[in-house]
């Protein structure tokens, strides 16, 4: 296969098609709309299902219905639209169905703007919908990863009967990079043993998320949790840069992780022993790796395009064993490498204990922007 110059939104759409996407339901919202527009042409061309729903609420419940039939199904949206999907996601999780969702995040809260942001971390990684459920969350940082993780999303969704969300910011949706698309997979011909496709010559099957008897509901929740334990054991993915001899560690995902990489390289060029951990799976979170780094490093800097959402997860792994620092640009701003370098300097220059929560400390430094 040869590399092509591909735009994020289009690359994801085509990767899903090649992974055997049989039905897509979506609703326009910037900066994700090109994905929907591309599939409005591509899916009918292949005789597959494309519906522009009346809303994200409609879209996610169309996905819910299609998922019951055992086909590969997907929706995509951006932050405000994803918020509307939360009820459906909870139902899908409660019904234990495999579904893939793409979230191309923009600035917020509220209507916000269409600039790149990572504001949906908490909503996506820690549920968002009601109840005990655990979506798998994949966070690409470049176009090739966006393609590979989209394909992986379908496999993981089916393997664990789980919701898998590919979480990226708007800049990745608009970005072009050389990347290689996977070969076209044939559409599936046999369906999982739970699919409701008509009880021809077999007992009936039912998909529901209502368990009036709390004992049954509890069983379901525990079963979902058990599956999640498997996911945590098998599916943690991350990328590390210069960690072998790192005294200080930067942690960031997606675009923030890439910006951090430039800053880390600059710090290395100055002779600072700094490394980077870029989580690729946000859920399951690379907790063990971060715990180990907490034990071996003099400080950790978390960089995000929000006000410190993953920060809380990192701090839960670090458990106070090393100082944690934070730098974020919320609201639709991509930090520049130089800004992150300044933060690296701050960390390496006063490596002692921090007084106060890293988010509070950061906010004090951000006052100039208010």
């Amino acid at each position: 296969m040869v590399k092509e110059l591909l735009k994020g939104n289009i690359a994801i759409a085509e990767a899903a098609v090649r992974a055997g996407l049989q039905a897509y339901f979506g609703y326009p919202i910037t900066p994700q709309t090109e994905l929907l527009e591309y599939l409005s042409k591509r899916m009918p061309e292949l005789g597959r299902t494309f519906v522009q729903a009346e809303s994200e609420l409609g879209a996610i419940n169309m996905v819910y219905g299609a998922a019951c039939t055992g086909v590969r199904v997907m929706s995509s949206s951006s932050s405000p639209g994803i918020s509307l999907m939360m009820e459906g996601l909870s139902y899908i999780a409660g019904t234990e169905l495999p579904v893939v969702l793409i979230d191309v995040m923009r600035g917020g809260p509220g209507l916000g703007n269409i600039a790149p942001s990572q504001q949906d971390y908490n909503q996506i990684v820690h549920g968002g919908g009601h109840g005990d459920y655990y979506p798998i969350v994949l966070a690409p940082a470049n176009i090739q990863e966006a393609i590979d993780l989209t394909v992986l999303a379908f496999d993981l969704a089916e393997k664990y009967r789980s919701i898998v969300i590919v979480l990226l910011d708007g800049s990745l949706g608009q970005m072009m990079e050389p990347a290689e698309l996977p070969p076209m997979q044939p559409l599936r011909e046999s369906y999982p043993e739970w699919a409701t496709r008509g009880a021809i010559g077999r007992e009936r099957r039912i998909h529901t998320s209502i368990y009036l008897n709390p004992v049954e509901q509890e069983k379901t929740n525990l079963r979902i949790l058990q599956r999640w334990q498997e996911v945590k054991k098998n599916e943690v993915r991350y990328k590390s840069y210069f960690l072998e001899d790192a005294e200080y560690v930067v942690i960031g995902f997606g675009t923030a992780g890439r910006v951090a990489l430039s800053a880390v390289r600059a710090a290395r060029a100055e002779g600072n022993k700094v490394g980077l951990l870029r989580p690729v799976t946000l859920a399951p979170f690379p907790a063990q790796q971060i715990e180990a780094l907490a034990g071996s490093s003099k400080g950790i800097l978390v960089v995000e395009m929000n006000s410190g959402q993953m920060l809380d997860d990192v701090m839960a792994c670090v458990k106070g064993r090393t100082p944690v620092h934070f730098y974020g640009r919320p609201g639709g701003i991509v930090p520049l490498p130089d800004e992150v370098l300044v933060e690296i300097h701050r960390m390496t220059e006063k490596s002692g204990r921090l007084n106060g929560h890293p988010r509070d400390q950061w906010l004090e430094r951000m006052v100039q922007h208010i």
Partner: protein
Amino acid sequence: MVTDTEITVYHRPATLTDLGTHYCPGCTHGIAHRLVAEVIDEMGLRETTIGVASVGCSVFAYNYFDFDFVQAPHGRAPAMATGIKRVLSDRIVFTYQGDGDLASIGMGEIVAAAGRGENITVIFINNANYGMTGGQMAPTTLPGMKTTSSPNGRDVESQGYPIRTAELLATQEGAGYIVRRSLHDPKNIRLAKKAIRLAFETQVRGLGFSLVELLSSCPTNWGMDPVDALRWIEQNMIPYFPINDFKVHPVIASLRI
């Protein structure tokens, strides 16, 4: 030179701010804004009106009107308007919504508001597509019409038929005034203004839900120059979306203004 025989026949309505709009050249959103402002002026409602902007090209409508305004989530303007109106029942509350906002994602809210006979006014801009997001198919997109999400033309077999919103809402018992007008030429613009006036009169008199659907142009996403776009409304939209009164409360019908 101004002499005492000269009279001003055309001026900016007092409730329209002195700001250039962000709308594309030739877009009729601006005309609709002006008509609303003229009516608010004429009825002396500046101090008692609260507008509700929706999500679409008119999301920044609040910049252009000189009275209180709020901005609702996509499709939810009638619900927000309800909240305001129920708390401040003596105020005039209106929403300004596009066809994607009102007839797609917000169809639930608008039908429910009409059904409740919610005493609010709705200015409904039907431009047959989603303008702000770059021209995707809307519930009002005509059969065969090409948009960025119906690239081969709207295929009614798989993408359904355009929804005639005014007709649909006129079936609601709670509706007091439901009409469709067009903004494609001066005569129709005058008729549109009168309808907007009557819609607000409906609200002032507490006669229930009022809505004016306005056939509007989107030259940018239709890929036409502004004049062709107006012609396109006349030739293509009106046959499918007839200009008509669909429900007029008897009190309003007998009103002479």
